[in-house]
């Protein structure tokens, strides 16, 4: 007998030792022995529907499906015996009788498991002489998903994904026998926000992407490692492009972050990159109209106007609004530009009224001995508290992890004033924050690992003191340090923007303003708008933020009307940009290098996939050029140079560089 819990068996004459309960397929895979399969998927439950993974087990009369057969001590498995080869060929031939030979027009062609496996194991020619079955196609399942019934091999991967992972029971198998099909209930479209994953799961071209339909063949696409810029999850993606056009987004599995899943916003949100709304050249408002100008003229104009305004009303009459959509490098340079070149601390990226010391609050929370959570902690936490945060809206992939945790009976406590999707998974639900906190403290007392996820709203509420007391209580009752805490902020790089010091009251790395010795705290975002209305603020420099998309846009519109100069640096013609005096074309994340810091403070790098469109430039480069107009040489040659400087200035980002981040990124604790 082998070691405790280990099983030894022979596959194709090779001695393999794997943990008890492993399937033959997984054991073989682990040892590099290839067994073909369609319906098996490591992250979904087993079906045994496709029968193509059959193997011969000595002593067992019939062939067995290796995906559903667990290993046993002393088992002798053959994956290539004559019997297996023949059976596999037969299974493939049978699958192919109902599969059209339309590979040349199929979007899966070139990356299709059925194509590859048939090429390797299947029959070379078909003996099927009858008319092939024909169906109306494509069937529109949802906004992004099209179904080609002829191609479907009924492997159940998509329906299992919907049931087990997404928790949206929208796809199902309809009818029986030869009429069986993947389908939706009448009038209920497949509009789950995770629908796009079924495209990648489908082992044939049955479920295909609507936006990518017939756009290109897979082998024509160039893949670039990137990070999804749509929320703070920071899912890893591959941008696939052809000729300066991003044509699709695939997931790039990172166990620490996304588990290989993507939400539809991440998968189909790339369409803005090549949209016609992009700003292609610098624009200046002349006699009320926006006119194309050269970079030199635009930068010269901005520099001259800023100098005029500072000499007339002082540097503090200028405000800067950056964005959580911008990378760490952009945000770092932005605050450096505002602080060093312009000479003001009026820097922010938030427009809602924030209680003055949000950063201080976050730092205080983390100074209490609780540890910063990582997304992986959701997987083994026994009690989870969601405090005024709704991952379904803000961070869909975190929602998937939480659903998984709830399914394995973790105690999920949802505290929210309204009903959220995760409420139906919660063991306890509270509407009131203090009740919820007390409830969680009581119910999680026995939990070996506790996790608290704070929503953005809690940071500014009057419950703040109460929250701190609760955290005190939790850390006092937690001598083993098994309570983790996370702050779920809105926006892809909100944590990064905070770290980079895009706040009026802290320098990069949360160093106090006194360290610079120069100025007092500046104005917060909403204070800047107030100051604009009463005439104290004369100019606003906005980078990457569409501030008019905020709730109170009439108020903001009015504030903008009072300003002497509005500079907007953005990639698309937003409402805000339309009111600007100067618009500078910024490149999107697909056209540049950089890093984002995600919700668990994992810094991840992304790379340039296509050339900057039009005359657009990366945000950091625009500010670098503008600083030159003020005779400040920032001396960066690339985004990585900026990152290097950040690592020198921000203490807890020390030794961060393009190399040390690696493919999976690195998580950085506070302090």
């Amino acid at each position, binding site marked *: 007998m082998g070691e405790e819990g280990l099983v030894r068996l022979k596959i194709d004459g090779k001695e393999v030792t794997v943990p008890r309960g492993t399937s033959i397929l997984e054991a073989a895979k682990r040892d590099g022995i290839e067994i073909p399969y369609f319906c098996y998927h490591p992250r979904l439950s087993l079906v045994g529907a496709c029968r193509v993974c059959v193997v011969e087990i000595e002593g067992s009369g019939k062939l067995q499906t290796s995906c559903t057969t667990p290993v046993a001590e002393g088992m002798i498995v053959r994956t290539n015996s004559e019997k297996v080869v023949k059976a596999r060929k037969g299974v493939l031939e049978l699958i192919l009788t109902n599969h059209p030979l*339309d590979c*040349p*027009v199929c979007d899966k*062609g070139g990356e299709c498991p059925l194509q590859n496996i048939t090429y390797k194991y299947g029959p070379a020619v078909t003996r099927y002489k009858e008319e092939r079955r024909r169906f109306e*196609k*494509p069937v529109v399942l949802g906004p992004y998903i099209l179904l080609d019934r002829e191609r479907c091999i009924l492997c159940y991967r998509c329906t299992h994904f919907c049931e087990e992972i997404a928790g949206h029971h929208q796809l199902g198998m309809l009818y029986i026998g030869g009429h069986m099909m993947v389908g939706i209930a009448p009038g209920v479209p497949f509009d789950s926000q995770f629908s796009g994953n079924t495209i990648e799961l489908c082992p044939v071209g049955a479920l295909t992407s609507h936006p990518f*339909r*017939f*756009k*290109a*063949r897979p*082998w*024509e696409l160039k893949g670039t490692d990137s990070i999804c810029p749509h929320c703070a999850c920071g899912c890893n993606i591959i941008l696939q492009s052809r000729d300066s056009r991003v044509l699709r987004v695939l997931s790039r599995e990172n166990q620490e972050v996304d588990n290989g899943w993507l939400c539809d916003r991440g998968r189909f949100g790339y369409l803005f990159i090549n949209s016609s709304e992009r700003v292609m050249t610098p624009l200046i408002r002349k006699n009320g109209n926006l006119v194309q100008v050269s970079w030199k003229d635009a930068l010269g104009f901005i520099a001259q106007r800023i100098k005029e305004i500072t000499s007339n009303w002082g540097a503090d009459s200028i405000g800067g609004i950056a964005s959580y959509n911008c990378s760490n490098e952009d945000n770092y340079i932005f605050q450096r530009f505002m602080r060093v070149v312009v000479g003001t601390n009026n820097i922010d990226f938030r427009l809602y009224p924030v209680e003055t010391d949000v950063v201080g609050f976050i730092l205080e929370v983390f100074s209490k001995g609780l540890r910063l959570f990582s997304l992986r902690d959701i997987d083994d936490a026994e009690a989870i508290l969601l405090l005024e945060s709704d991952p379904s809206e803000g961070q869909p992939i975190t929602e998937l992890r939480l659903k998984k945790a709830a399914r394995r009976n973790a105690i999920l406590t949802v505290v929210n004033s309204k009903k959220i999707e995760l409420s139906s998974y919660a063991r306890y639900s509270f509407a009131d924050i203090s009740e919820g906190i007390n409830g969680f403290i009581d119910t999680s007392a026995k939990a070996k690992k506790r996790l608290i996820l704070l929503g953005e709203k809690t940071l500014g509420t009057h419950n703040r003191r109460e929250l701190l007391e609760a955290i005190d209580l939790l850390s006092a009752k937690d001598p083993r340090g098994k309570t983790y805490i996370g702050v779920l902020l809105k926006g892809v790089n909100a944590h990064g923007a905070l770290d980079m010091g895009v706040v009026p009251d802290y320098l990069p790395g949360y160093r106090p303003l006194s360290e610079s010795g120069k100025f007092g705290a500046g104005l917060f975002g909403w204070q800047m708008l107030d100051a604009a209305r009463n005439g104290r603020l004369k100019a606003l420099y906005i980078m990457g933020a569409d501030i008019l998309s905020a709730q109170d846009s009439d108020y903001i519109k009015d504030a903008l009307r009072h300003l002497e100069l509005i500079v907007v640096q953005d990639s698309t013609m937003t409402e805000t940009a339309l009111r600007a005096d100067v618009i500078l074309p910024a490149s999107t994340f697909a056209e540049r290098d950089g890093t984002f810091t995600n919700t668990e403070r994992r810094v991840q790098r992304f790379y340039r996939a296509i050339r900057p469109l039009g005359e657009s430039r990366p945000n950091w480069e625009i500010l670098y050029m503008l600083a030159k107009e003020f005779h400040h040489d920032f001396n960066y040659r690339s985004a990585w140079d900026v990152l290097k400087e950040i690592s020198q200035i921000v203490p807890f980002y020390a030794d961060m560089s393009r190399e040390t981040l690696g493919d999976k990124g690195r998580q950085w604790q506070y302090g």
Partner: protein
Amino acid sequence: MVKELLKAFRVTLRYLVSKPITIRYPEERREQYPRTRWRHVLRRYDNGLERCIGCSLCAAACPAHCIYVEADENREGARFSSGERYAKVYEINMLRCIFCGYCQEACPTDAIVLQKDFELSNYDRKDFIYNKDKLLVPGH
């Protein structure tokens, strides 16, 4: 030596009186071998629909990378080929093409074929990018 000279002049004399091998191109044209491969055309079916389905296999097979295809979907009122997919853009860079015929071999619908038109001169380099208008045989 004289003998050798006479021998050589005999050859010259013989060709002087025999029918010349060269022809007076372009007034005269020689018949081409059946398998000569020159300018491509995109063919149609008898019903006038394009054979090309925009599958890009020609571009994948092309060793000179001179073919560029962009596909699109046939829509109601705008049907170009018989299936769901057709080539919206089909371009061949004739300056790069080496006339190997691999595209023809790769084509699953026999849409692209190399034919016998070899007079491909132009005044502008840009005119060597043959697009669908140039390649497609005229429809009905």
